[in-house]
């Protein structure tokens, strides 16, 4: 009897704590539930009366901003495919290899990428892209993102793949599969949760990134939403709160949808489980 009461107590306390933390986390975002639907939205929290879609109408009429959403999508999907693909292949090869110092390689690459993602490396990246002649193209943005995100993606995936015993592929090969078949048919499905994490993380990063597209793109037809959002600032440079709120909501939707979809279909797992 005592044991179950204390378990009950613990559960109750945990639930209260969890709810409080949840509410605190959600608080700054509450503004976004109301402001986009308020024709006179300001920085303060206010229940709009009436609820209106007029902000969205004005935003939809801004073709530059709407096209920008498409650009963000192109850059994010392109980047994600490249990162997901290249990282999985490379992490697999590294993990299953016996190259000396393979662990160090991933750590070193990780450190390098931390330098390169800072502002200091924007210049050499600009110079390299201009030398290749890719300035002002979607491809440039996709390649640069892929390069920058790969080390961390490989780091996460390698951990994941290391946790899967070789016996999986080995038994497949014993049954007659080639190593590459073993990779695609046996290992890949087990690695999939890790790939899902990398895909979501990469998408979120690219979707929200400002500096790289800003440095590499010039034509307004290529600008992604992270840059286009600044077009909702007025002549004097102040944010037009109503339009900004509406656009932000639209801008946030794809990542929310992606997360919900992935969570529902795959669930978030960081590590491979033999026990799953």
């Amino acid at each position: 009897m005592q044991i179950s009461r204390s378990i009950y107590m613990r559960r109750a306390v945990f639930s209260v704590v969890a709810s409080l933390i949840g509410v605190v986390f959600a608080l700054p975002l509450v503004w976004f539930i109301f402001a986009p639907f308020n024709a006179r939205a300001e920085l303060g929290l206010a229940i709009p009366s009436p609820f209106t879609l007029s902000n969205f109408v004005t935003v939809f009429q801004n073709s530059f901003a709407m096209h920008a959403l498409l650009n963000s999508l192109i850059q994010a999907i392109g980047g994600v495919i490249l990162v997901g693909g290249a990282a999985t292949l490379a992490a697999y090869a590294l993990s299953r290899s016996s190259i000396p110092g393979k662990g160090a390689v991933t750590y070193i690459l990780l450190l390098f990428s931390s330098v390169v993602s800072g502002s200091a490396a924007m210049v050499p990246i600009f110079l390299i892209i201009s030398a290749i002649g890719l300035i002002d193209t979607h491809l440039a943005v996709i390649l640069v993102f892929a390069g920058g995100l790969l080390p961390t993606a490989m780091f996460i995936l390698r951990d994941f793949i290391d946790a899967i015993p070789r016996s999986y592929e080995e038994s497949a090969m014993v049954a007659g599969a080639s190593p590459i078949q073993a990779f695609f048919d046996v290992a890949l499905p087990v690695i999939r949760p890790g790939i899902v994490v990398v895909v979501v993380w990469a998408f979120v990063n690219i979707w929200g990134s400002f500096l790289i597209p800003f440095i590499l793109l010039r034509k307004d037809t290529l600008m992604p939403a992270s840059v286009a959002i600044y077009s909702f600032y007025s002549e004097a440079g102040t944010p037009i709160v109503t339009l900004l709120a509406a656009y932000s909501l639209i801008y946030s939707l794809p990542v929310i949808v992606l997360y919900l979809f992935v969570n529902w279909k795959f669930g978030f797992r960081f590590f491979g489980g033999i026990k799953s």
Partner: protein
Amino acid sequence: MKKFSLLSTRAGAVFLAPAAALVGVFVIIPFFWVIVVSFTNKTLLGRTAIDPDFVGLQNYFTLFNPATFFARGQFGFSLILTVQFVLFSALIGQALLGLILAWLSQSVSPTLKNFLQTAVIAAWILPEVVIGFAWFAFLDYDNGTLNMIMRGLGLPPADLLLQQPFWVIVVFNTWRGAAFSMMLFNSAFQSIPPSYFQAADVAGASSWQKLRDIALPLIRGHVVTDLILITMWTFNVFTPFLLTSGGPSYRTELLSIYTYRVAFKDFEFGRGAAVGVIIMLINLAFALVYLQIAKKKKAEAE
């Protein structure tokens, strides 16, 4: 000896090729450019743009110049600020909070768990510009939501952005990044066979004991991974710029913001590059420390 025990050497090379090419061009080359430039006084504008001088370690000496080191707006101040920021926001903030949240999630109802995780993850996945703006509105002195609540509770409103900018960005960054640690630890906990915990329950262990004696030792490797990643990310994080622009008066000028100012506003590449290299060396030091602790603990456990 076969290099790739499962794949043929050729297949292995093909597998590595795309990543190697991308990383080679967009990470390794820029990295070495940054190192080389850190030894020059290259700028984008002015005479030193077309005629930079090789100045050896001059940039590094200027950054660590004891006379200006602690002055606000200088490298030293930014460095100390960033170390404190990482300590509070990444280690104590995100990692600890992530751990607590993951542990809580194991023992509450699924609905509550979903609510909690959704709220925490929403903070992480929404685009930076959007949440920067949301927090700006939240903290506004005159109309912001936070002050509305404070006034509602009878407390005086707080001019947080101006009075306590450091703590604002610490809380902000913790809020922003806790999701990653939470998800990582969540997965780690879920991979521990439930039988371990059941045995502990039978023996009457408290939640804290279960965490300390069973869960933590088993996920030690993941804790290290988490710490390495979030320390590095937090050292480089730029998002607080959207909230405070490094101000007021450089009080929240983290190293990434300092580098941005030096390299992109003043266009002093040499100095900006030197800062980038120093940041990397610090990250390297942190990583080595974590790995050492992990190895030591592993040896202790065995």
